[in-house]
């Protein structure tokens, strides 16, 4: 096999060639698209925030909330749990107990996919694009977050709101704003 170098080059090139060429052509487009998407997301969020169309609240863990083990609705806003409750709530959340958004005005929201989507998965497995202030950008903070690490923290979200059922509304979160880093805590 004295032509192995030739064969390896051809085979590897064949596998990669199509996508690499496509990637080269699309790379700029993808990058531009991403930048445009983020810019539009931020502009929409800040405009909605000024117009009072965002929802301020805290993420609460559903199992302990619905069986009454915890009562975040009866605690001061921004401090829905004691340290012990928070530890248990986060453990349950990462075991896929559903997470709800308890708004400052007491409304309960169920984070869900966009209306019309049929085969969907738990929103807890999704990344939510994060809106950052200039200072947060300069600090190089995470540009996205997921729900589980945010349980118990004050957040502001923008998205489509649905009527839901029996007082619990649906919300498809399009962007999220919060202070500090995505992951915090000394004993996490």
């Amino acid at each position, binding site marked *: 096999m004295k032509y192995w170098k030739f064969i390896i080059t051809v*085979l*590897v090139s064949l596998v990669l060639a199509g996508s690499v060429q496509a*990637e080269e052509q699309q*790379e700029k487009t993808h990058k531009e698209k991403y930048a445009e998407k983020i810019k539009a997301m931020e502009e929409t969020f800040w405009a909605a925030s000024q117009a009072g169309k965002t929802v301020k609240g805290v993420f609460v863990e559903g199992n302990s909330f619905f069986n009454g083990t915890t009562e975040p609705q009866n605690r001061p806003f921004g401090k829905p749990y004691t340290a012990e409750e928070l530890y248990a709530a986060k*453990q349950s*959340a*990462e075991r896929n107990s559903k997470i709800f958004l308890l708004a400052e005005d007491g409304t309960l929201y169920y984070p869900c996919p966009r209306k019309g989507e049929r085969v969907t998965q738990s929103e807890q497995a999704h990344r939510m694009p994060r809106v950052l202030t200039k200072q947060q950008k300069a600090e190089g903070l995470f540009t996205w977050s997921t729900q*589980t690490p945010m*349980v118990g923290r004050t957040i502001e979200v923008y998205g489509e709101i649905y009527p839901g059922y029996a007082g619990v509304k649906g919300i498809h979160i399009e962007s999220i704003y919060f202070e500090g880093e995505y992951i915090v805590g000394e004993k*996490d």
Partner: protein
Amino acid sequence: MAKKPIISVKSIFYTAVSLVWIFGLSAIGHIVMVLIEKYNPAYKFTFAWQMAITGFVIIYLTRWMKSDGWQSFWGTLGGLGLWFSFEYSLMYGGERMGVCYTWNGSYPEYRLMKWTFMMLLMVFTYLLYQESVRCNFIFFLRRTLGLMRTKAIATGKIGNYGPRTAFEYIMVTWTFYVLLMIAYDPELFGPHSWFTYMLFFASFSVFFYLTYKLLGYGKFGANLRYAIPTVTILWNDVEILAKWGLLKEPWVHINWPIMSVIIAGFSISTYLIVRDLRGRKQEMIESNDVM
């Protein structure tokens, strides 16, 4: 047993180049995944298949390579290709099952990987008793625990180091991912537990020990193979520092100035390895104690 390293300028050069190459490979592997996720997430599963096919093809083709240096070089790349596809397969599985991130930020694919620990132990048990295995750590365990009926050291010629190197890359990476995930699990230990601190300091110490041993392998081939566990052990510290919030990984936060230095280091080390291997085309080593 590895002989006491004879340290020379040449062996320092080989060691440095191998370490830079393996480190660069890991860093570039990470940033490729991050860039795909950021700019074109729809492409990731296509990429996974491409990497799987490329990995298998490369490993197959090593059978025609005559020097252990080339076999190890390409074997490492083949192993990386397969590892990419393994991580993406877990990512796909995580999406199908709706696995969420943990509250200390661990990704779904690594949560799934953590529970392959028993599978890892089963594979490791096989390797522990497989007589042709030449891993120094396994020799140590065989000697210390008296595991073998015959002598614990394998001898003889190895026809192709390519698949071995790919398997070594996969096993070492898998082992340390599982170990880190177990360390991070707050229900077992936690990122700030004694276990994670022990892992951090042990990894740091073992890295220097392995680097010292690495100085004894004065050729690309054995040197590249031995650099895989050496760098991966150091990588534990990088990961733990990031978990503690003391380090912003340049490949996660896409820090191009630092990544440029890493990519440049990788390119130069690749050039030096290729130049050296082309200079001694068909040389094959026979070793008693090298993976």
